[in-house]
């Protein structure tokens, strides 16, 4: 069992996301520790990309800030290598295919394995194009995370068959005013996934409050929170560690309390979707 799978065995997993290098590498390192301290079970670190087509405006802006501040794949690898001396928490890179492809996918995966990056999420690599990275990631023991969308109904079986680690369930098709619909779509896709796989299902929305995190935890094995944290970083910059820790503690408490029922308190703010 690898670190990613283990993380889902203890409890409902809280998976916060931060953009690497936003506002700078030193703060990112402090944030990684603060998230662990606040109760994260896995962490997603965004390797910023110039054109993140699956991101809403909050994370787009974070990517732009991080790139302007000079963040690169090599700097993030160095950071993770240092962080690994202090923690065993599973760390996932979230990025786009081009930074991996251009770096050289084999070299990228070797560096992941070497530095202690457990897995990789590339939202612009659907099941059909998985072959782009699958051989190199497998050879290096890096987990490739697959995604499911509410519109994936007919594709769940094939996606689940090649998936590893956990299934990243996205519900990003909603427009304002369709909260109940979104809740049902997410529940439906997870229910369908459960009929074909034993992999844990984590859900990523524009989850921005503890109440929503609690409600989502009732539905899934893990909850991914991105934009709400990244917004705190945007607002507080170098002073963001304390407010982020505080906010993530609130998420942890709500998830552990198991409060809320599926579909309750769901609210996807338009444009705040972190796929």
């Amino acid at each position, binding site marked *: 069992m690898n670190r990613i799978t283990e993380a889902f065995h203890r409890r409902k997993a809280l998976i916060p996301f931060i953009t690497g290098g936003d506002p700078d590498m030193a703060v990112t390192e402090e944030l990684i520790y603060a998230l662990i301290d606040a109760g994260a079970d896995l962490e997603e670190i965004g390797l910023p990309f*110039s054109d993140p087509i699956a991101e809403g405006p909050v994370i787009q802006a974070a990517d732009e800030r991080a790139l302007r501040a000079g963040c690169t794949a090599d700097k993030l690898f160095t950071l993770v290598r240092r962080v690994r001396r202090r923690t065993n928490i599973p760390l996932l890179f979230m990025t786009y*295919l*081009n*930074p991996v492809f251009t770096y050289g996918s084999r070299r990228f995966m070797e560096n992941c394995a070497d530095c202690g990056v457990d897995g990789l999420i590339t939202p612009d690599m659907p099941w059909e*194009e998985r072959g782009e990275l699958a051989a190199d990631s497998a050879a290096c023991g890096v987990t490739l995370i697959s995604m499911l*969308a509410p519109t*994936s109904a007919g594709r769940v079986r094939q996606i689940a068959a090649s998936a590893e680690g956990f299934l990243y369930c996205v519900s990003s*098709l*909603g427009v304002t005013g369709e909260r109940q619909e979104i809740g049902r779509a997410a529940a439906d896709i997870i229910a369908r996934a459960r009929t074909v796989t034993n992999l844990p299902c984590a859900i990523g929305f524009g989850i921005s409050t503890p109440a929503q995190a609690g409600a989502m935890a009732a539905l899934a094995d893990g909850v991914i929170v991105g934009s709400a944290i990244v917004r705190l970083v945007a607002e507080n910059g170098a002073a963001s560690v304390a407010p982020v820790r505080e906010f993530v503690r609130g998420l942890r408490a709500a998830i552990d309390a198991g409060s809320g029922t599926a579909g309750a308190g769901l609210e996807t703010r338009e444009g705040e979707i972190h796929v």
Partner: protein
Amino acid sequence: MENGRFGGYGGRYIPETLMSAVLELEAAYERWRADPEFTGELAALLADYAGRPSRLYFARKMTADLGGAKIYLKREDLNHTGSHKINNVLGQALLAKKMGKTRLIAETGAGQHGVATATAAALMDMDCEIFMGREDTERQALNVYRMELLGAKVHRVTSGTMTLKDAVNATMREWASRAADTHYVLGSVMGPHPFPLMVRDFQAVIGREIRAQLLAAEGRLPDVVVACVGGGSNAIGSFYEFIPEEQVALVGCEAAGLGVDHPQNAATIANGSVGVFHGMKSYFCQDAYGQIAPVYSISAGLDYPGIGPEHAALHDSGRAIYVPVTDAEAVEAFDYLSRMEGVIPAVESAHAVAWARQAAPALGREKIIVITLSGRGDKDVAAIARYRGVDLHE
């Protein structure tokens, strides 16, 4: 070609949230592309509404002036809405209608594709929203107003470099959030499969007409077909018919901006490397870490950091060649064609004219060059004046 691949290029590198929309589109295109109901309706629209076939005009004065190969102009600028974009848009809008979609969205750079999409939406009674980089809305203010006149809503995109690539990003995000009633009318031979294939099919009418018209005029095929290349839709539309005809040279003109060695250019084949972006594997202008480079051209329509996957394959095989043309050369050609033939070309198309001006004298008088004039230059008059420092108020 298999699974949307042209050689090793193309593919379908998009978020899972877009896959169902793209698969639905592919199925619909396969269902309708050869159906006489669809092809008949499209042919009628192209003839009666767009004004096809576009003229193949013998540029007598230009030919005499250059003293070499005979120059023919394929007059896509004479189409309704003023460019080749209408060919593709009518095809996609008709297909969207067959699919039961009620809303069209599109990106636009210079505004030509946005105007064409807004036009088709008006004609076919569909809602229309256009995404355009804020920088381009300023460069092409008249086209923004034109789209609004046609009933479209224009979104000014303020992320990234605020140009064409960011408009594509924004339109893809919009489509991912709302595909049930919405078709994304992609404007070039780029993006995920089936777009590069489908848009090429809709634009291939250009090359088919060139063949028939030149056979009628000269009794033979051209020696060279030259067109400008951003994403590359007018170029592939011009080339496709002639790919099997090895004796016909195919030349794509990329925007070299201030020069291929200057940081401000958009010459993807000259300066780019293979990458994966906007749903496709192809050549892109990018840095060593795979960050997409900000590109520049005087022409908003060529101001794009990538090139369609079929062009990437044609480049690798050597079947087509791609040459960089600078702003200065394009503006000079813009002037030249205006004064020589009384035809004001789009500044995009002027890149192809510039190459032909240099190449024609070296070719014998028995040779024939066909230049595809992808669009008319009315939209560029103010920008050209600004380029020269003339303070022109529209």
